[in-house]
């Protein structure tokens, strides 16, 4: 009964979305207040209905209702409650429902918090949101209905993919989707602005919080996914340039560019049409990511859907959103008049450089990700574009970006001198050169590039903090605007991420050894002993657990217990790594296959500064949230300047 209720409310939500996607648009064009007012209530109703559907599916999962096909395929009664809940979005249908839910919630949020928006703009934004919603709800109902029943109901389900039964991954999809879908709001704002024919400082101020929020969630989502890969895959790496990782990185890069160019629109009334274009591209890349991941064209853990109809639907939808957006852009963007003039050396110039480099990075990733697809289509050759490609293209383009990143905030708007800005950064420059030299001489004299990259990381951290130095000297640190503080935190945090990734990937130590209980080895100055390997019983798995005692200088230091789990329902084995961290390095151990007679394969890693990668990413998102809390974005409803000429 409850699954039918969910199915029914999903159908109703589609109907409401159709109304919300058309009538307010009409109202905005005609200046009809009643039709425009419909947008708000429809957005709230739609969110409520999708929430109801999502609740119904969650209920089916929690109570293990095996008459629902989706639950049978992805859940099991012996699964812990957390994974019953996360199982809701651990599959194709459920994850699309989660997407639709977040989309509807963002729509409702615009309806609730958009009281200071002009009526026409708000109703257009809500209508565009609803049209995107129509696409996703139709996709759910016609190709991937999560509420489909099976008869007769089986006694138990197939269980969730064990790799996904992990706290890190339970929250990875919701965070990632909050990011992806958040860019739907900026997309809707961009389309609405094109329909209205005006983009001004007020528009940028309304858009920026949404872009910022989406960006923060996307940052967290990507970081969580990378952290998960680090500790579950057991290879000691944190980023594999897997197409699916790239799919989330592209909208992140475009979104980061959008955040920065929106500042120029807000402060200087320039870069308008570029910002609108970025908003369209950021969401298009989010959809492209969804298409790549969900359609099964790529080989990946996320590719649940192997059904060509689904891939075709998403592709058609992607074309409609991107193509429609770009066509409207081509038609209307020339009307957007650029405002303030500026010199190449200025804050605006620096932000343009930032945009140029970020977009080049996104294009590089896009090319590397899609190249195998195109080559396969054109020639039938199967190729893979792996980390070497990205290391050779992505990393060099990062260098000028990082170099300029610290200088930009010291440049004034409109026109500036490079000399004084560089002079204020001399301490940061000296510190980073010293850091690079120390890295080269003390850590590893063969890895020049790693030392250089390490220097860049230090430059980012110290250079970003330098803008606080002046405030400390003049005693104005307390009055620093939240937006500025957020920027400093996020920029410095990026440096921390760079330091962590450079150190881990360049200077880690690894050792693989077959060990029997009682064996000892010495590893990077530590003395490691395999005490025992025992069997244990988990809630839905049986495991082999090794106990490694680690000593240093004859004294016991720590105990590591890596496991191999065999999930009984799926007959699948998963390694559970053991990680001991002191925030400066990770001591990382995995247990491979083996038995008492031959011994077990043990793999040990010492990953310097590895925790900084995720710490830095979390700080980066925190910087975004600090900036989001700036009161300028919340109060003081910005007023629009009167238009020079009517829009339509």
């Amino acid at each position, binding site marked *: 009964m409850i699954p039918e209720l969910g199915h029914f409310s999903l159908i109703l939500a589609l109907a409401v979305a159709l109304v919300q996607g058309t009538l307010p648009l009409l109202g905005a064009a005609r200046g009809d207040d009643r039709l425009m007012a419909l947008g708000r209530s429809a957005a709230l109703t739609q969110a409520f209905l999708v929430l109801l559907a999502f609740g119904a599916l969650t209920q089916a999962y929690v109570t293990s209702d095996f008459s629902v096909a989706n639950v049978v395929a992805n859940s099991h009664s012996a699964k812990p409650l957390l994974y019953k809940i996360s199982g809701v979005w651990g599959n194709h249908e459920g994850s699309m429902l989660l997407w639709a839910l977040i989309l509807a919630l963002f729509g409702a949020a615009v309806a609730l918090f958009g009281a200071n928006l002009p009526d026409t703009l708000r109703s257009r934004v809500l209508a565009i949101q609803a049209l995107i919603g129509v696409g996703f709800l139709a996709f759910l109902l016609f190709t991937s209905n999560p509420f489909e029943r099976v008869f007769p109901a089986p006694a138990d389900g197939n269980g969730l993919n064990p790799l996904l039964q992990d706290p890190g991954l339970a929250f990875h999809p919701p965070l990632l989707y909050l990011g992806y879908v958040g860019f739907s709001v900026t997309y809707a704002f961009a389309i609405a602005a094109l329909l209205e024919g005006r983009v001004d400082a007020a528009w940028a101020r309304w858009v920026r919080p949404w872009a910022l929020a989406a960006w923060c969630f996307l940052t967290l989502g990507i970081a969580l996914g990378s952290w998960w890969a680090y500790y579950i*895959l057991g290879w000691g790496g944190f980023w594999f340039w897997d197409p699916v990782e790239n799919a989330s990185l592209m909208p992140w890069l475009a979104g980061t560019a959008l955040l920065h160019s929106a500042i120029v629109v807000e402060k200087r009334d320039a870069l308008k049409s570029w910002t609108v274009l970025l908003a369209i591209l950021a969401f298009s890349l989010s959809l492209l990511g969804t298409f790549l991941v969900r359609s099964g064209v790529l080989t990946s853990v996320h590719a649940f859907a192997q059904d060509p109809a689904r891939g075709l639907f998403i592709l058609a939808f992607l074309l409609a959103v991107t193509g429609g957006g770009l066509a409207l852009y081509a038609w209307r963007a020339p009307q957007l008049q650029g405002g303030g003039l500026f010199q190449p050396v200025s804050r605006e110039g620096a932000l343009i450089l930032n945009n140029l480099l970020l977009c080049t990075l996104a294009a590089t990733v896009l090319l590397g990700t899609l190249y195998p697809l195109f080559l396969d289509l054109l020639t039938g050759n199967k190729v893979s574009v792996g980390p*070497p490609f990205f290391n050779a293209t992505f990393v060099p*383009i990062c260098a000028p970006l990082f170099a300029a990143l610290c200088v930009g905030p010291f440049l004034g708007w409109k026109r500036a001198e490079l000399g004084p800005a560089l002079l204020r950064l001399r301490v940061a420059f000296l510190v980073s050169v010293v850091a690079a030299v120390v890295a080269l001489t003390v850590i590893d004299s063969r890895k020049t590039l790693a030392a250089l990259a390490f220097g860049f990381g230090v430059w980012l951290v110290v250079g970003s903090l330098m803008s606080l130095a002046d405030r400390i000297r003049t005693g104005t640190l307390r009055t620093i605007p939240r937006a500025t503080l957020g920027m400093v935190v996020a920029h410095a945090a990026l440096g921390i991420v760079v330091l962590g990734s450079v150190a881990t990937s360049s200077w880690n130590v690894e050792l693989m050894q077959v060990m029997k209980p009682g064996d000892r080895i010495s590893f990077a100055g530590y003395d490691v002993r395999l005490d025992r390997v025992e069997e244990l019983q988990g809630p839905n798995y049986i495991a082999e657990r090794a106990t490694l005692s680690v000593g240093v200088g004859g004294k016991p230091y720590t105990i590591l217990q890596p496991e191999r789990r065999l999930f009984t329902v799926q007959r699948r*084995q998963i390694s559970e790594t053991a990680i001991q961290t002191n925030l400066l390095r990770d001591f990382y151990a995995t247990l*491979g296959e083996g038995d008492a007679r031959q011994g077990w394969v043990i793999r040990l890693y010492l990953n310097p500064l590895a925790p900084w990668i995720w710490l830095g990413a979390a700080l980066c998102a925190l910087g975004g949230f600090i900036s989001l809390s700036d009161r300028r974005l919340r109060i003081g409803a910005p007023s629009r300047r009167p238009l020079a000429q009517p829009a339509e």
Partner: protein
Amino acid sequence: MTPKRRRLWLLLGSLGVLGVAAALVLTALNDNLVFFYSPTQVEQKLAEKHLGPDRRFRLGGLVETGSVQKDGQTVRFTVTDTVKTVKVVYRGLLPDLFREGQGVIAEGSLGPDGVFVAREVLAKHDENYMPPEVAKAIKDAGQWKERK
């Protein structure tokens, strides 16, 4: 500075950055493209002299049943597309889903003795999952059976 000159500046700057990026991308693609071959294709490419001993590529197919031999950390197995086979040697931890009779993708290069030295054996994340490249290789060999 006039708007016109500013635009020129911008254009030149963008072209410069894009040019550098394009150069990087092209060289990187040239050097780092890793082709995927099935055992049948490996034999073809060897016959056509397209495959030197140092050429890195991905080998995909099924792990032949009964072929896996473990000796400490070194594993030897045979990859088959049900028509041709290639012997593989790998030193390292195998992914959790490595099984006889299952699909596998190994990245590495052929040794002088014709044995494929794998530097990486790729983990697949689902037991029912067949890498599309592997499925295609088996289909091309005409041995594909639909399973349900």
